């Protein structure tokens, strides 16, 4: 299966989407529960980590990045990299 064949590689099964949906719902419950516990400075970090896991699931499964060619993954990583640069440089300016 060296040659990438998007349409035939897909299993066309409903199961994976339902499982991912359940995972997303569970993660939402977790993030709400953690926020309610009020561990102060940990809450923002955990909330963002959980949000990132959820976004990763949506990107790879719902948006099919997992079965797209590598070029798509590189595209997304480059876009995120530049957004990341904006944040890093902004806070390099602001925090000190």
């Amino acid at each position: 299966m060296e040659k990438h064949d998007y349409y035939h590689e897909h299993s066309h099964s409903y199961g994976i989407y339902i499982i991912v949906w359940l995972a997303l719902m569970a993660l939402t419950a977790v993030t709400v529960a953690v926020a309610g516990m009020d561990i102060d400075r940990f809450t923002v970090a955990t909330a963002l980590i959980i949000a990132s896991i959820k976004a990763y699931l949506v990107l790879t499964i719902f948006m099919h990045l997992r079965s797209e060619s590598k070029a798509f993954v590189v595209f997304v990583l480059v876009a995120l990299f530049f957004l990341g640069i904006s944040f890093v440089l902004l806070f390099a300016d602001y925090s000190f």
Partner: protein
Amino acid sequence: MSSTEHTVDAHVHRDDVGSRMGMWLFLFTELLLFGGMFLIYSVYRFEYPEAFHLAAKELNTIMGAFNTAVLLTSSMTMALSIVAIQRNQKTLSIIMQLITIFLAIFFLVNKYFEWTAKFHHGIYPGSEELLSKGSGEILFFGLYYVMTGLHGLHVIVGMFLIAVMTRMTRREIITKDNYVRLENAGLYWHLVDIIWIFLFPLFYLIA
């Protein structure tokens, strides 16, 4: 548009990979649009941490969590509609698309009630009640209205986009062998979902 990717029909010239890549490129511009706002949010959050905590108490966490669930579910039904069309189950695909549209409307109705409740409490941009608060809280609510408002606008656009896809599916313009339009509408819808995944904790869960 020069090559046929799949040997569906030797006469059809189309490039589904190129089409999806074009959609992704568009999504990156959306990423930067919202990214800029997240940048502003993070700076002001950094400047006024206490005020942001205080202001976030005004938001209804249950309502926010509920709307998150609605949007996540709509993302799943959108993904399922694509599987259905891949399996040549036209009716099921249409039903899934209609459920997605219904959930989008449901999300907007919730948002409407949420916003009007805020308005009744006198919290809206430029209101006396809001202007009497500290600048950190004014900034929080300004960002809240702009970011959830712009997101809501995307939900409306996505809803209409999916409605067009439903029409095309019914008319068999979108079929088992040619459903890249439906996929692209799905990509847009999932991006709207991802943005909400970040908006929700940053506005509703920091109290």
